[in-house]
């Protein structure tokens, strides 16, 4: 159309614009490639120790030690898993951990929401003080309590019992705070008033009205509590002394001594793999909520 005005100069300008455009596309393309390269590298770094462990658990001890590295087992040694399951105490301590973490999770959820309910929905003298007190317990690191609490457990005669593993973790300040925030936002006052008019006692209000409304919060708090107790090590290490009472983490730490040698290393890797699975499965299931929890506590 405008051919008459389409001088050599205009043609050059257009060519330059085209060139600039394609440079931009190329630069963007390079950035895109670099971006994914960086992300895949990151994923490799984070996954490698896990993958190496799972692969190692299926190798023979010879395959694990060969240089150049043999990445895949020639024949997967599923027998390693059978052997570790029949190893002394493995099943028992796995069961101990399930029982202890489960009991602690139930207790943290129930007692946490009971205290949280009181702090969220009642006005009473000392409310502020109690809340501050409970929150302040979160600020002191565990190692300060380690020796006196052990002494207490020792004097109570609870060393090497389930009580020692469960009771000191039965309530957490985080659990109370978390449930208080949830109940304040999600349990309508009208419902509680209606319950009172119907003659519900305060405890029945809690059990029949508050608890059913807390299901989603219970799930999140219960799962995170279970995971952190499944993974906890120092306290069980201190209060258990016989293999029957070991939690899975304590047993694993002793397996390192008995199976850490070169010839039994695949067995140690199999045991480690099994010990990771329950916590990690729950972690993956609740990941979204855990992230939300972090953003709530972290960013106020």
């Amino acid at each position, binding site marked *: 159309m405008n051919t008459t005005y389409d001088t050599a100069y205009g043609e050059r300008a257009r060519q330059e614009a085209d060139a600039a455009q394609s440079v931009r596309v190329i630069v963007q393309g390079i950035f895109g490639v670099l971006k994914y390269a960086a*992300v895949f590298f*990151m*994923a490799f770094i984070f996954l490698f*120790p*896990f993958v*190496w*462990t799972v692969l190692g658990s299926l190798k023979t001890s010879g395959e694990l030690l060969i240089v150049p*590295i043999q990445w895949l087992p020639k024949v997967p040694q599923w027998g390693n898993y059978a052997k570790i399951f029949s190893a002394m105490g493995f099943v028992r301590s796995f069961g101990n951990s399930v029982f202890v973490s489960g009991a602690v999770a139930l207790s943290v959820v129930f*007692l946490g929401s*009971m*205290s949280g*309910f*009181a*702090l969220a929905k*009642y*006005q009473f003298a000392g409310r502020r003080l*109690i809340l501050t*007190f*409970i929150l302040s*317990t979160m600020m*002191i*690191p565990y*190692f*300060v*309590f*380690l*020796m*006196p*609490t052990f002494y*207490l457990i*020792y004097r109570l005669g609870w060393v090497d019992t389930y009580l020692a593993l469960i009771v000191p973790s*039965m*309530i957490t*300040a985080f659990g*109370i705070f978390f449930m208080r925030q949830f109940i304040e936002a999600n349990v309508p*006052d*009208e419902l509680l*008033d209606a319950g*009172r*008019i119907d003659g519900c*006692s*305060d*405890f029945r209000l809690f059990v029949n009205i508050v608890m059913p409304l807390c299901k989603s919060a219970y799930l999140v708090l219960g799962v995170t509590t279970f995971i952190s107790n499944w*993974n906890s*090590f120092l306290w069980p290490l201190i209060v258990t002394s016989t293999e029957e009472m070991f939690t899975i*983490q304590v047993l*694993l*730490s002793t397996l390192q001594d008995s199976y850490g040698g070169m010839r039994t*290393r695949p067995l*140690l890797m199999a045991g480690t793999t099994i*010990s*990771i699975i329950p*916590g*990690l499965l729950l*972690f993956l299931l609740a990941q979204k909520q855990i*992230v939300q929890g*972090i*953003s709530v506590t*972290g*960013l106020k």
Partner: protein
Amino acid sequence: MTSFGASTGSDIAALAEAKDVRGRGGRRSKAAPYLFLLPALLFFSVFWVFPFLFSIWVSTTDWDILGNLSDLTYQGLENYGKVLNDPIFRTAVRNTFTYVLMDVPALTVLGLGLALLLKQSMVGRGAFRTIAFLPHGTSAVALAIIWKIIYMPADSGVLNGMLLQLGLPTLGWLTDPSWALPSILIMTIWKWTGFTLVVFLVALFNIPSEYYEAARVDGANVWHTFRHITIPLLRPTFLFTTVTNTIGAFQIFTEVYLMTEGGPAKATEVVVHYMYTVAFEWLKMGKASAMAILLLALILAFVLVEMRLLRARD
């Protein structure tokens, strides 16, 4: 009853009051919150107030766990003097400081860097975030065992195997005194980066995109927007990750206990591990309690400085 009367009509309140009196007595609502809180208050008294005060008290005595509490001799601040003059404790403090001062900045830089990377539009972002977050859901014991196997000396560890295949010399990761602490550092940075990343990622997504668009209209480049929008708005996040990571780093125990036991030649001895050894292997509880109180003071001082620095320019 007060909250009840406030939230609904007084006639309903009166009705309920009547029911109250007739049914279970009018005082029940006043006692209820205290009854609900009773288990928690008892619990925190027994497992928090008591141990805390007890710790401070026994740190001034020659307590060991086997002795009777009535036989304790008061020693004033003798334990603190002993601890401060203990060469192993000094080494442990120095190592812990080195560890914290390397760990916390590294986590901040890597966490923020990877969060900025994952904030770009890309396929599979959620999966990558999950992968980086995996170590956070895994026990310290399992990870210590895994990394100890990876770090195995000579050609029996996979890391040295890879170095060999690249034609590089192998390293005594956990056996060489100058490499042991850095090796533990690498492992714990690997473990905690995902947590820091997730916190930063949440915060980045909370910054309204209009800010960036407005800046771009005004001709700001990527660096400008990062420097003048992202960094200032992330200040609370910096504070949170720094304080959380600092408190966590000061308490490193499991990795040292399982991977090096403080060795070689005390190169990885850290305060909590040494405290554990003094308390539960040597049974010198008084001395260990003094160490606990000193470490607590150290952490508090450190965190207060960090809060000062990071809150400064409000």
